[in-house]
């Protein structure tokens, strides 16, 4: 810390305070409800989320998120082939109407140089799964003008797959997820910023889906159902980059790319192009295009593959989420600011994988600034 405040820093403090008034000083409460539906009468989810942001002076901000989901529908599962012994076909199993509740809290503290230190905690609970997490992050400014910052963060989740009469295991199974990421954010000019980050993660413990089965073949060539088996560790990492540009007042683009790889054999590329367009004094449109491509885990075989069964021992999954596919999302958000306090928005997203899976979700809600 410098013993005296030099002029640029003083100007920054004063101007930064004014900008904060313009952009961030409002405390706010938001509520958003989501209706999510998949094709082929699969999963339906109704979600509600409340977020509260509260500043305490200029040095502290508290954020609280409360969420509730209600899940219903059916999910793909092997079932006996009618009229055939030891043969199985892809079917669907109903998902019990499940409720999930979640809470997440974040505290941001700022020092005199306006470096930010964030600590967070999260908890979510559903009948067959419990997750608790903690995180910490620091954003450190490189220069007095605040044109470059470095960010480093770490997060740790402890998960429990809770045994029920319908799960593969009769006792609870636990796992941990560790994430570490570091990034740099650079102001390029008065209308654009760029951000780059590297991230690594390690999942450890029981990482299998505790509902899913696979078909194995015994020494006599007979098929039988068995629990799916994934490795008990997954090491992952990747790179991400973001470029945000204001082309003219009221027209902003946000371009994001992510590269991912892990030791299960999955490599992924994700690109998202977002725009914000103030089409009228109180109206804003935000279209989104997202493209995602991933390769399959080395121990994955799809339900429809020519060979979709596994040997009597070893790893094996049929879960399409670990398969190779390309997915495209198109979305449009419409925002209406009725006053300086109230903003209403509605967003429709359409998601399609090239393996036939698709989903749509509609989000509607409001933000109240005070």
């Amino acid at each position, binding site marked *: 810390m410098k013993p005296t405040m030099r002029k640029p820093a003083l*100007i*920054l403090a004063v101007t930064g305070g004014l*900008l*904060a008034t313009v*952009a*961030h000083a409002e405390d706010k409460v938001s509520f*958003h409800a*989501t209706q*999510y539906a998949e094709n082929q009468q699969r999963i339906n989810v109704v*979600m509600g*989320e409340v*977020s509260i942001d509260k500043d305490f002076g200029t040095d502290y901000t508290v954020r609280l*998120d409360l969420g509730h989901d209600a899940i219903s529908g059916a999910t793909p599962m092997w079932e006996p082939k009618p009229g055939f012994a030891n043969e199985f076909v892809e079917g669907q199993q109903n998902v019990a109407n499940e409720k999930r509740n979640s809470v997440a809290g974040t505290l941001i503290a700022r020092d005199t140089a306006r470096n930010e230190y964030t600590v967070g905690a999260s908890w979510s609970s559903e009948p067959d799964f419990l997750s608790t997490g903690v995180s910490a*992050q620091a*954003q450190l400014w490189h220069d007095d*003008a*605040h044109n*470059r910052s470095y960010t480093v*963060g770490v997060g740790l989740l402890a998960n429990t797959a809770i045994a029920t009469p319908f799960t593969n295991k009769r006792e609870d199974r636990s796992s941990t997820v560790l*994430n570490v990421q570091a990034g740099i*954010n*650079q*102001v*390029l*000019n*008065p*209308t*654009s*910023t760029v*951000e780059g980050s590297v*991230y690594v993660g390690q999942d450890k413990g029981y990482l299998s889906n505790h509902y899913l089965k696979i078909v194995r073949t015994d020494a006599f060539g007979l098929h039988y159902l068995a629990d799916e088996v994934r490795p008990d560790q997954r090491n*992952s990492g990747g790179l*991400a*980059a973001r*470029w*945000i540009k*204001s082309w003219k007042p009221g027209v*902003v683009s*946000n*371009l994001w*790319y992510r590269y*991912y790889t892990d030791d299960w054999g999955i490599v*992924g*590329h*994700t*690109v998202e192009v977002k725009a*914000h367009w103030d089409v009228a004094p109180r109206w*804003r449109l*935000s279209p989104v295009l997202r493209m995602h491509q*991933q390769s399959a*885990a080395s121990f994955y075989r799809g339900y429809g593959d020519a060979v979709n069964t596994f040997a009597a021992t070893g790893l094996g999954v049929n879960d399409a*989420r670990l398969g190779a596919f390309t*997915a495209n999302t198109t*979305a449009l958000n419409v925002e209406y600011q009725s006053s300086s306090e109230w*903003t209403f*928005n509605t*967003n429709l997203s359409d*998601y399609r994988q090239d393996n036939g899976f698709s*989903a749509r*979700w509609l989000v509607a809600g409001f933000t109240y600034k005070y």
Partner: protein
Amino acid sequence: MFKPIALLMAAGLLAGCQAIQEVQPWEKSTLAQETMKASGPIPALGSVDQHVYTSKEAVKGGTGIGGGGCGCN
């Protein structure tokens, strides 16, 4: 499809980084707008999207670096 986009983006980033300007605090009114934040003006939309993507895709991570360039807080 992704390789050309990634290369284009990398080229754009390199070009942009070569043209870094020293931006003064009083020139940051545009950077301070909520649309210039990574999470956009309505962060809840991003959290819903992430909720869907992490439940339907095997890829995760790379979305957690916060901060913005403007240093307005």
